[in-house]
């Protein structure tokens, strides 16, 4: 047999029945469409370019008469250290014939206060005919003051596209070396190192679609893994939509407008991977992850009892400037 098409057909023998999930596809699609429409409404205030640069993150829903209203976080109006309570600006579409601004905001704030276990109140309100834009602050937070509520929301200016002159593999080697230094500083013994740049360099307008470095480290009960991956917002086909629907996903807005997501993945066999992703406003994504098993050539089925790094250390890696070259 020399025809690859025939061989592909042979691979498909024994195809299992397909799931009947079209209703689910449509339901998820409707939610995504509403989320996109929220973004479009916000763009009317802040300008499309600014919204593209400032990631918009749906974080909460307030249920009104069975219809979920997606609320979006815009850029923080007053960047502060992450340890301080911060004010945030929210936007939500206003439905014709829907509740008043006061009723709407009451539900929104209640939902956010429960979600964040902190009491929020409205500092500023800007109501327009098709949306609400409000600044809400937890008690004790500082902001830039009342300001002029008619001014557009401050946003991050559009960033230039990334451009690398260096050889992709040398870039990957460089940041894998930095990863190794940090892991050693934390007292871990490295048993395997791998630096990788995606082989094809055309996916992102002439740049490798991602750089990846990982090290396997020796723990008392076996090898485990620490890795960092640097990539870019792909294309208009797959923009970062702010979804945080992975298991145990938590989300934090950082002062510079970046969004940090922390999640946990269980790939099976007792394996566990912790992931901290930082989505920067310009589309760069730094993803630090650790696993309780090795990825390298010495990998076994063994799972270690503990992860090699603490969550704080993993977060440090994800925020490390060495990986935002």
């Amino acid at each position, binding site marked *: 047999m020399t*025809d690859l098409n025939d061989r*592909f057909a042979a691979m498909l023998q024994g195809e299992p029945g*397909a799931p009947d999930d079209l209703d689910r596809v449509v339901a998820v699609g409707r939610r995504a469409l509403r989320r996109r429409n929220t973004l479009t409404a916000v763009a009317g205030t802040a300008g499309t370019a600014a919204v593209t640069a400032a990631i918009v993150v749906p974080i909460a829903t307030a249920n009104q008469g069975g219809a979920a209203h997606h609320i979006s976080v815009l850029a923080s109006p007053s960047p502060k250290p992450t340890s301080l309570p911060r004010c945030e600006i929210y936007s939500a579409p206003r439905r014709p014939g829907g509740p008043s601004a006061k009723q709407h905001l009451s539900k929104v704030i209640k939902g956010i206060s429960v979600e964040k276990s902190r009491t929020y109140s409205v500092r500023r309100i800007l109501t327009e005919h098709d949306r609400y834009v409000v600044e809400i602050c937890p008690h004790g937070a500082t902001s830039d003051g009342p300001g002029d509520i008619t001014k557009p929301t401050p946003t991050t200016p559009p960033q230039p596209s990334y451009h690398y002159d260096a050889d992709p593999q040398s870039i990957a080697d460089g940041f894998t070396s930095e990863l190794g230094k940090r892991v050693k500083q934390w007292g871990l013994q490295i048993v395997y190192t791998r630096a990788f740049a995606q082989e094809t360099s055309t996916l992102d307008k002439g740049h490798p679609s991602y750089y990846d470095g990982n090290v396997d480290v020796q723990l008392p009960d076996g090898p485990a893994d620490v890795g960092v991956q640097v990539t870019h917002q792909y294309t208009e086909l*797959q923009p970062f939509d702010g979804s945080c629907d992975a298991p145990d996903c938590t989300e934090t807005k950082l002062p510079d407008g970046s969004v940090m997501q922390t999640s946990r993945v269980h790939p099976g066999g007792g394996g566990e991977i912790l992931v901290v992703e930082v989505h920067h406003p310009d589309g760069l994504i730094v993803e630090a992850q650790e696993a309780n098993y090795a990825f390298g050539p010495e990998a076994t089925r063994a799972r270690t009892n503990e992860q090699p790094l603490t969550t704080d250390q993993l977060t440090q890696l994800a925020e490390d400037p060495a990986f935002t070259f």
Partner: protein
Amino acid sequence: MSEADEAAFRAFAVTRRPGLRRTAYLMCGDWHQADDLVQTALTKLYVAWKRVRGDETPDAYVRRILTRCFLDERRRPWRRESPVEVLEDRAARTRSDDEAMDLRDALALLPPRQRATLVLRFWADASVAETALALDCSEGTVKSQTARAITTLRSLLADPVLLEETS
């Protein structure tokens, strides 16, 4: 989305889903993953449905999305690909016929973009231009990726005449 648009989307999804699922399976080698990929691709298509119907054919668009979803999924840390140098070492080995691995194993050893290129070209029957569109690369890259993938497959499958007619 209007009721008419949604009905059109549903009709498209029902008719195209089996083909998309098989394409996804050939790319990823796992039916569960294939179902996830198709579900994600169709969801993205739903969101873009009104625009896609006006600007380009839904078939081309959903093929692009499916391919990008597959490549994005390969990027995830828990689905790390083997380093390229390891693949090349294995590909360089000479195998006798009785050692030849089956196509599924051989495809799994190809880099994901090469795998996607082969599936699009030789299963989905996409032209070089259509494959380039799906992969967001040049037509020259599609040709070089195809050639490299076939060379590797020939070695892995111990089949020197594989695809002689089409490559």
